[in-house]
């Protein structure tokens, strides 16, 4: 905490991280509103509270590294560079969506951004990350694979299969566990014999560490170091980012399993205002600039909603496309 921000990143990158977190928060809160209005249907899992992980980790990756994630992934696509308008249109199911309106909230893909998808099956992405990393090495490319997942995924067999393989075959996978303490309503202590998730890699001889996932700079620095280590050694590494989701598991989850005092405690650790305080305190940004960031993000999200509302539905015949070549 004592390290000055400027000793870590130049001002414009620090501001960029703030902008991204604010944009993600605005986006997710707009999603909640659109869900309530019935414009987004199905299941909607929002990321509010966890922005420091997506923003900090993604900033530490190379542009051509692969990112693969789970179903709470709108912000991960956005910080990777996905157009918020097209992400919102995807959630609406419109033809202009990032996946032409058929992937939906849990299945965002963008190959141009090397964003290899959200996966709705908990733990479904682990073996696929193994394969992506194998292919990168096979092609003698420098890329690594950043595989994001939640605390609920670590008891799936695929987690253990994936870690074992990545170490056995010496594959460049950076595992980033977003430990928000709850798999829907089951607290991590009630689902995992060893709740310190980063310690679970010892069985696979994979180095790991725990980081404060509410602190964007802490995440950035840890992932930066880990990503470089993975790239250099072609070996896996695991980071456990301790974080918290401010909303329920999905929009249909009132979250009664958490005491409101607990939620309030974590909201005091909200990564956005806390980072704003540091930017102000170290003279990197003034309040007018931070206000401007929020206004710009709000306008961008409003534009995304408008774009989604005005976009056409996919043609009925689209249902037959892209099943086979």
């Amino acid at each position, binding site marked *: 905490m004592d390290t000055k921000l400027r000793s870590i990143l130049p001002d414009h990158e620090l501001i960029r991280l703030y902008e991204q977190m604010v944009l993600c928060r605005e986006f997710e809160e707009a999603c909640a509103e659109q869900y309530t209005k019935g414009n987004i249907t199905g299941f909607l899992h929002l990321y509010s509270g966890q922005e420091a992980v997506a923003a900090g980790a993604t900033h530490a990756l190379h542009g051509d590294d692969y990112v693969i994630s789970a179903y709470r992934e709108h912000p991960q696509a956005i910080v990777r560079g996905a157009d918020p308008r097209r992400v919102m249109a995807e959630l609406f199911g419109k033809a202009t969506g990032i*996946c*032409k309106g*058929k*992937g939906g909230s849990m*299945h965002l*893909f963008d*190959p141009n951004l090397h964003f*290899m*998808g959200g*996966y*709705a*099956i908990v733990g*479904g992405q*682990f*073996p*696929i*990350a*193994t*394969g*992506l*990393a*194998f*292919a*990168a090495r*096979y*092609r003698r490319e420098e890329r690594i694979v950043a595989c994001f997942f939640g605390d609920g995924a670590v008891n799936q*067999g*695929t987690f253990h*299969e*994936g870690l*074992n*393989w990545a170490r*056995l*075959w010496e594959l460049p996978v950076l595992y980033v566990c977003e430990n928000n303490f709850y798999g829907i309503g089951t607290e991590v202590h009630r689902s995992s014999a060893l709740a310190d998730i980063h310690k679970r890699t010892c069985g696979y001889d994979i180095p790991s560490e725990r980081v404060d996932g509410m602190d964007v700079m802490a995440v950035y620095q840890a992932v930066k170091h880990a990503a470089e280590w993975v790239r250099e050694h072609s070996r896996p590494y695991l980071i456990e980012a301790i974080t918290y989701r401010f909303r329920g598991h999905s929009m249909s989850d009132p979250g009664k399993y958490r005491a409101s005092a607990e939620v309030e405690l974590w909201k005091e650790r909200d990564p956005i205002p806390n980072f704003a305080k540091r930017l102000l305190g170290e003279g990197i940004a003034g309040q007018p600039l931070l206000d401007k960031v929020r206004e710009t993000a709000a306008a961008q999200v409003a534009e995304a909603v408008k774009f989604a509302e005005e976009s056409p539905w996919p043609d009925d015949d689209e249902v037959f*496309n*892209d*099943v*086979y*070549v």
Partner: protein
Amino acid sequence: MAQLNMVQAINLALREEMARDDRVVLLGEDVAADGGVFRISEGLLERFGPERVLDTPLAESGIVGAAIGMAAYGLRPVVEIQFLGFLYAAFDQIFSHAARLRTRSRGRFGCPLVIRTPYGGGIKAPELHEESSEALFCHVPGIKVVVPSGPAAARGLLLAAIRDPDPVLFLEPTRLYRMIREEVPEGADALPLGKARIAREGGKVTVVAWGSMLERVLTATAPYDAEVIDLLTLSPWDEATVLASVRKTGRLVIVHEAVESCGFGAELAATVAAEAMLSLRGPVFRVTAPDVPVPLARLIDHYLPSVERIQRSLDEVLQY
């Protein structure tokens, strides 16, 4: 031209395609050092090296999932699963991801992988080693299901499966692995997927079969004026060839070793009823296994469709 059995023919196809295309990699339990449990990949480690012929941990969902990642990244992985019954552990990866990657990404990622696995009864092994559950996979849009019936078909179809841009389940009839030898033309073209083969021409009844049942059907139908269709690909299946034959013969018998209920024969019968009802002289018959798990060795001959049961069905349909 060499006389090869199916094991050798599949090995030849892998060897040819790996030499032609360095995106092709093999992975599975014991496929490298050991050459696979049925020795299909024997010699390939020596020929292509440990980077392309990969022994994996014993973890089927991990194997298939890893192959999905490789395929999404532009490789052409060929997975070996030791028995079809062992593939059930990977259902999630196949159904939830491999089959849907193209749709989910609206055509921007494909999943060009092949899962090869022996299937079917008659090798005196217990149930999970003798499964014939092809219909489960035919029910899932987004994957193709191919079942060769002999060495030449196995070679030609495997080449096509590896080159296909979509995921293909390639079912190899275990009972026939070393039973049939035939001329297998090295270097010849791949066979097209989705195209059936008329194994024997005939006029009075159409008999449709695939994979392990084909040779038994040829034996059973020898004394009859029957047209035998070897379906070769079950998904997508060759409706045109089957319908043309049924319109000619007016009778249809379907033979498969899978259980009857919701077996692939039901799909064939429903399509023929819808498309060629007025050509039919009699009911469509299915000769299948009963709706029970595959029994142990002593009962397997009672379980699998026999020459006698096929002939009884032919006799019955020919009375119409």
